[in-house]
């Protein structure tokens, strides 16, 4: 199995997530056993204020999406929308709006027998929007669909290790895996994981290709209509199975209108004029102003990501390790954060971001253990390299979001160590072709998700995504070991080794962990920030006259 999950180009968190795969993070956060017995009710309803029912919320979405067939989308924004229509066997939650947890959703109980058998016991009384009751057979059908390369070519690999599915009774599903599968908790979330998102089998069969435009799920909202490049309208599903803390019916809202607004200044304008009640991301230039706006609540959190620049080791000049290291010292991360992201994020010194909980090494916070800015040292390293007299390099960048701006800053910073950088912009398909197929670049800007899913495919020798052709056998061994290790402590050790090797050999310059934002008018109540780019409307209500 080759997992390329968790891979993301820079346009991802640059809020233009064409083709980005999902968020996967915080594997180390919760111990395995903790997953079994969590309450199913939604948190945070113990407020003084009683929820008002009804109303339509309009949310400006920064990107078009491809399909509402959860098993076939490649857009992370689509997952955010899917999560309001579907449920997964598991879900992502965030108690504090910063870290994330994985919990059962449609499963009442999740039990792991040995290290290869997972048993899910389903809630009773769950129905699809078309009235069909949810049974173990439906779950089985869905997992089989995902495993089938013909039907879900994009996610089939996630279930490659799935050997057999048993349904001993209508509400129990027993899965047999060939190896330990620590990635399951990520893959089985109803939002970004997609592998165990439960679609209505009858609807899929009946609607065929058109299903992606006419989805049927078990989620709090049912699909009403989709106007291409305009909006998706969802409507409250009256028989939704989840309840609030007080046992009241969910959801509160009557309708959810997801309005696609891809021009950043218009998105902000629409929010300011109240034409939308909230937006799901924004060009960082606007955030400071929006924070000052007394009418708005701005939710931000550092995402589980690391923004970096890969160096092409297979080519001159970055075959020279000293030059690579010089680059890692020449990058003034603070300047990038200020000029490109306008402070929306934190500096990254290594690939593992602070919200990564157990994997994260606090010593990185000071910078001195990871990569950090030191121009003098950079210059010294250049002198030691074969390119003391200067070198030229092409920086390949996608043409959207803040990527071109970052390229500009990098160009100026690298010029200080005598590196003459030529910026080459490309749109997404061309970018991918140049980057992964042709590999005619020296530097490339990427934004990655957290290490568990990115270190292996991107830096393991011989992998497709390792377009910079870095080869380090020790590193390979470390990430291979981590991938099939269920024990958190051992995995952490493997990853720390891997990170150390990266820092030493410098195939990549690490720069930032950036924020994701959700901005709502203050009358939008009870929105739960889950920094996996989710916009869950399950328990949201509007405090409007």
């Amino acid at each position, binding site marked *: 199995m080759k997992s390329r999950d968790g891979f993301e180009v820079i346009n991802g968190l640059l809020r233009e997530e*064409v083709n980005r795969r999902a968020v996967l993070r915080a594997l180390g956060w919760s111990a395995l056993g903790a997953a079994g017995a969590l309450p199913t009710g939604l948190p945070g309803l113990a407020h003084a204020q009683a929820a008002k029912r009804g109303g339509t919320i309009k949310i400006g979405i920064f990107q078009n999406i491809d399909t509402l067939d959860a098993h076939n989308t490649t857009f992370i924004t689509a997952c955010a929308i899917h999560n309001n229509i579907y449920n997964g066997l598991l879900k992502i939650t965030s108690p504090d709006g910063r870290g994330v947890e994985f919990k059962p959703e449609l499963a009442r109980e999740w039990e792991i027998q040995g290290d290869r058998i997972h048993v899910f016991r389903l809630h009773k009384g769950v129905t699809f929007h078309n009235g069909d009751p949810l049974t173990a057979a439906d779950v089985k059908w869905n997992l089989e669909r995902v495993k089938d390369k013909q039907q879900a*070519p*994009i996610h089939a690999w996630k279930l490659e290790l799935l050997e057999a599915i048993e349904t001993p009774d209508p509400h129990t599903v027993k899965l047999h895996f060939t190896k330990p599968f620590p990635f399951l908790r990520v893959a089985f979330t109803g939002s970004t994981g997609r592998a165990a998102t439960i679609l209505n089998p009858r609807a899929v069969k009946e609607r065929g290709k*058109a299903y992606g435009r006419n989805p049927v799920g078990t989620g709090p909202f049912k699909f009403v209509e989709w106007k291409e490049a*305009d909006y998706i309208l969802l409507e409250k599903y009256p028989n939704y199975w989840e309840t609030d803390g007080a046992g009241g019916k969910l959801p509160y809202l009557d309708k959810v209108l997801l309005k696609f607004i891809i021009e950043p200044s218009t998105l902000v304008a629409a929010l300011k004029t109240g034409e939308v009640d909230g937006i799901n991301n924004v060009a960082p230039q606007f955030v400071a102003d929006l924070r000052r706006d007394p009418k708005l609540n701005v939710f931000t959190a550092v995402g589980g990501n690391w923004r970096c620049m890969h160096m092409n080791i297979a080519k001159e000049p970055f075959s020279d390790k000293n030059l690579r290291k010089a680059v890692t010292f020449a990058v003034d991360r603070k300047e990038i954060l200020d000029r490109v992201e306008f402070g929306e994020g934190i500096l990254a010194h290594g690939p593992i971001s602070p919200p990564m909980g157990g994997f994260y090494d606090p010593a990185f916070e000071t910078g001195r253990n990871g990569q950090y800015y030191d121009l003098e040292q950079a210059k010294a390293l250049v002198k030691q390299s074969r390119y003391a007299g200067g070198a030229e390099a092409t920086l390949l960048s996608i043409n959207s979001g803040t990527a071109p701006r970052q390229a500009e800053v990098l160009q100026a910073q690298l010029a200080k160590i005598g590196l003459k950088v030529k910026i080459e912009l490309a749109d997404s*398909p061309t970018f*991918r072709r140049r980057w992964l197929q042709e590999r005619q670049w020296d530097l490339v800007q990427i934004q990655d998700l957290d290490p568990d899913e990115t270190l292996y495919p991107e830096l393991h020798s011989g992998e497709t*995504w390792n377009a910079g052709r870095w080869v380090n056998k020790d590193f390979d061994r470390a990430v291979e070991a981590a991938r099939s290790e269920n024990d958190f402590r051992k995995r952490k050790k493997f990853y720390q080794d891997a990170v150390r090797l990266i820092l030493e050999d410098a195939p990549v310059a690490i720069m930032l962990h950036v924020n994701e934002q959700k901005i709502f008018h203050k009358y939008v109540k009870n929105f739960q920030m889950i920094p996996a780019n989710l916009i869950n409307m399950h328990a949201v209500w509007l405090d409007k006259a």
Partner: protein
Amino acid sequence: MTRFALSRVGQTVGVLWIVSVILFVLMRLIPGDPVLIMLGDEFTDEAYRQLRAQLGLDRSLLIQYLVWLGNILRGEFGYSYISHASVADLVFQAYVPTLWLVIASLILGTIIAIPSGIVAAMRKDSAWDYGSMGVAIVGFSMPSFWKGILLIWIFSVHLGWFPAMGYVAPWADFRESMWKLVLPAVTLGTFFAGLVARIVRSSLLEVLDLDYIKAARAKGVGQAALVYRHALANALIPVVTVIGLQFGALLGGAVLTETVFTIPGMGRLTVAAITTRDYQVVQAAILVGVLSVVLVNLLVDISYAFLNPKIRVTA
């Protein structure tokens, strides 16, 4: 008239065929292909080859073209590679808003352009002339996206007079629909108005110099009737042609205007499809767009013939 119309229709068919060839070749020349997008993060060389074969992209360009052309001629536009939606649905859904935008801009532009062109011509070299022509030039001198964004921030965010964005079908809510159309139509319409006003002016000036105007004056026709009856009827004939020719430019302008104002039209659809190499959608969308341009030009030619008795009565 029939002969004239028939020969124009014949030409149009030829043009459309050439358009289909240009379109197809152009699209296939663009590096990167839908497979890269469809594979998303699941990219492997093997998967890449497999999916390409599945989509028929590994066949020769000629075969691909013939298959596509055959499908189009049978009215089968296929499914989007990216969204799996029916291309015909996508294009139709996108066509209506664009049509509204273009028509609204045409009407608004014409309403602005014709009177100001007349005023400028009637008072040639006066402050009126300089004023209206100055405004006209500014109208098409601002990049439309910038004009649009300024309009949004001034008239929506700061003054709150008009909605900032969006589209509502006129049959769903007419008032709301028109309300939302104001700023986009102003953006696109002022561009168009600037162009047309200048042409109205020069066309009118040209006609006013002709013999039959002098002859009409010699007959005792008063100044107003001279301009509005005798001159305008002739001066507007070339203006109709220009309006028709500008239809294509308006569609092009709609690309930017739609993006700024979040109108789910052809421009946005096309740009999005190009950036994902969604060949099926791009090809269909541009073909339909070009088809409308060509048809409008055909109609304009024929209406030109109709307006002009010389062609109407003899040909």
